[in-house]
Structures are given as C-alpha cells and as structure tokens.
C-alpha cells in the first residue's frame, strides 16, 4: 500500500512499495517505466516516493560476451556524470568520465556469445527523485561465470540535464533502459520499487 489512498488521504503505509514489473517475452530494444497519474493505481504515481530502487536480471542480444546496460532519465540525452569502481578477476579498477555522457552507464550484462543461462544482475537506486537537487544514481552490478569474464562493480551517476540550456534539477518521471549494442533477451526481468519516508510522527522513537 502506498501512502496516498483512494481518497487522497496520507497513510503510514509499507515503506518499500512494489510499483511495477516487466519481463521480456521477446527481444526488447528498450524497457521504459513512467510515473502515472489517475484514479486506479496510486502506487504508480512516483510523486510520493523519496527514492526508487530497480532490480534487474538481464542479458543482451549483442554478438559478444558482454554489453553495457544504459539508461536515460526523463528521456533526456544529457548530462550524466559518471564514476565507476569495478573488479574483474583479481584486479580492482576504476574510471571517471571528465565529460558528461548522453546516458547513464549502469554496468555490464552478459550477451549472446555467453551460454544462454548467464544473465547480469543490477541493484540500482535513484535518490531524492522529487527534490530540487541534481539526481543521483548508485548502481551495484555483477555478472559471474565459471570461467573468466566475471565482474562486479558500482557506478555512481549525477544527472544534471542541460538540454534546455541550463542545468536542470527536474523531478524524475521516466526511466528508459536499454543495452548499448543490442536488445534485452526474452526472460530479462525488471522490478521497480519505491521507498516512502516516515509520514506520521513516530511517538515511540525520539528524533
């Protein structure tokens, strides 16, 4: 239960709300989640959430062992500042883009030249999505094999859209996910959650 009920009344609902889910039944070039308004499913109205959390198990059709998982916020192609910490085999690595990207680089997933049972996993958090701040993303990701090619990492992204000529702090209403060089294969799964703040005063705990 989200905290806005059918009468528009605020409740102290579950703090972790399942918003939406998508499982690819064919090759999907893109998977999109959007905030919705209306009178039937209040959970899908993102305006009530502090953060969003996206859990992904995905694989790309790219003719390669791996692909990159990318996303755009509000369908904007600027400006995603990124730093990454990752490890493959026994070596820790990192990189930072000193110029912004046109998309958020979320990490790696497996692709067509790996056995079909190998998928990549992501745990992605979008912070303060309704605030007047630059939007922040932390993406923890991993993909393991019984041979070389496994990786684990964490990407951090700050989104400061410049498409309208100025640095924007827009609220978040759309997430577009896609592999950099292919499509998501059938069976790729995406689950979106929202976190709610404490609404009513908690008289049992001082703060």
């Amino acid at each position, binding site marked *: 239960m989200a905290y806005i009920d059918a009468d528009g009344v605020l409740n102290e609902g579950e703090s972790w709300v399942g918003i939406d889910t998508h499982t690819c039944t064919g090759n999907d070039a893109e998977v999109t989640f959007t905030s919705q308004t209306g009178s039937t499913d209040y959970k899908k109205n993102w305006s009530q959430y502090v953060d969003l959390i996206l859990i992904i198990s995905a694989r790309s059709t790219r003719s390669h062992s791996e692909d990159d998982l990318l996303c755009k916020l509000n369908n904007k192609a600027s400006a995603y500042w990124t730093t990454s910490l990752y490890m493959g085999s026994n070596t820790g690595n990192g990189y*930072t883009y000193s110029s912004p990207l046109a998309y958020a680089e979320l990490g790696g997933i497996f692709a067509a030249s790996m056995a079909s049972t190998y998928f990549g996993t992501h745990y992605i*958090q979008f912070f303060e999505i309704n605030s007047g701040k630059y939007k922040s993303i932390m993406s923890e990701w991993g993909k393991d094999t019984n041979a070389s090619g496994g990786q684990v990492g964490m*990407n951090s992204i700050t989104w400061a859209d410049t498409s309208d000529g100025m640095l924007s702090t827009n609220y978040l209403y759309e997430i577009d996910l896609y592999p950099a060089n292919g499509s998501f294969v059938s069976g790729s799964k995406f689950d979106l959650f929202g976190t709610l703040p404490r609404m009513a005063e908690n008289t049992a705990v001082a703060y």
Partner: protein
Amino acid sequence: MAGLEAIASFYVTDDLDTTIQFGSSAKPIPNTYAGLQLRCSMRGDDRNDHPWLRLSPLGSNSGNNLHFQIRNLFSGGASGSVAPLGAKDGPTSSIVFPYMHSRDTSDSYSYSPMVLDIMGYANATTYTQFLYQSGSPSIRGDQYEEGWSAIGCASWRNTARLTHFTVDAYLDSEGFRRGTSFHLYGYGTS
C-alpha cells in the same frame, strides 16, 4: 510487520542543524528489527572538501570501548584510480564514512547519497556492524569537479545494544546544508 518500516525521517531545514539524533535513552530505537538502514542525501555547508558522515553511538556505554575498523575502496578524481581509503587495522576514535559534497567541491544542487546498513544492533551480545555504499560525481557549472564510488564497513566494538545515536558532518565546521535528509528504516521480520 512490514518488510521495511520507516522509523524516522529528518529533513535539514536550517543550517544550524549540525548534529541529528535518532532515538534517545527514554525512547530508544526499537530492538525488534533484524537490522536498520539509514538512507542519506547529504551536503556539507563548509568550504572543506569532502566532509564525512560521522556516526556516534550514545547511551549508557558512551565513551566505553568505542573502537572501530574501517575499510573503504575509492574510485574518484579524473584518473578514476582505486585505492583503500581510511583503512584501519586498529581502533579509531570515531566512526566515519566517506563522503559528501560541500561548497568547495560542487554546485549547491549537488547532494551525496549514502546507504548505511546497521546490523547486530539490537542485542547485547555482538558487536554492531556497519556496511555502507556511497557515490557521487560532482560538478561546478558544466565542469566535472570530482567524484567517487565507495563501499566500506566498520564495527562498533561494544556488545551493548545500540539504543540511540547521532550523525554529523565530520571535518565540516558548519554542519549539514539545508536540504540534507535522512530516513531511518527497520528491517521487519515476521
């Protein structure tokens, strides 16, 4: 019980909010959860670069046996180099987690996320363990300044139950900037 319960939310609305307390001796954090999660969006108001989040356990055991170990991995700066950060093999005087942006490093719209899990807090037999992730590139105007992705852990080497604690911006004489927010959750069990 809900899977994840919101215990408290705190919004910094005044730059005088330098220390924020969760729980008290009279109204302690309930010990009914499997663990706690503190979700943060922070910014320091000082000109020092990169303040840290400091967590100070309070209560009857305050000042006794406060020992911590911290290990971090850091990827930041233009090179993206990776290195241990603040690794301690022995006790330290405070428990701190990197980082948050401040006036010296970024536009005023840049806030830094951190997720801090607090486990083993509810009993009086084990040390409390902390596990965090934080990460945030910062910009000034349309120029990259610096950033990081960091993971780490620490322990409060005290078997006492963690009943209440404070957080503040370590290395920042002016505290959190207005707009900083904290949300404390409890992992509910059936």
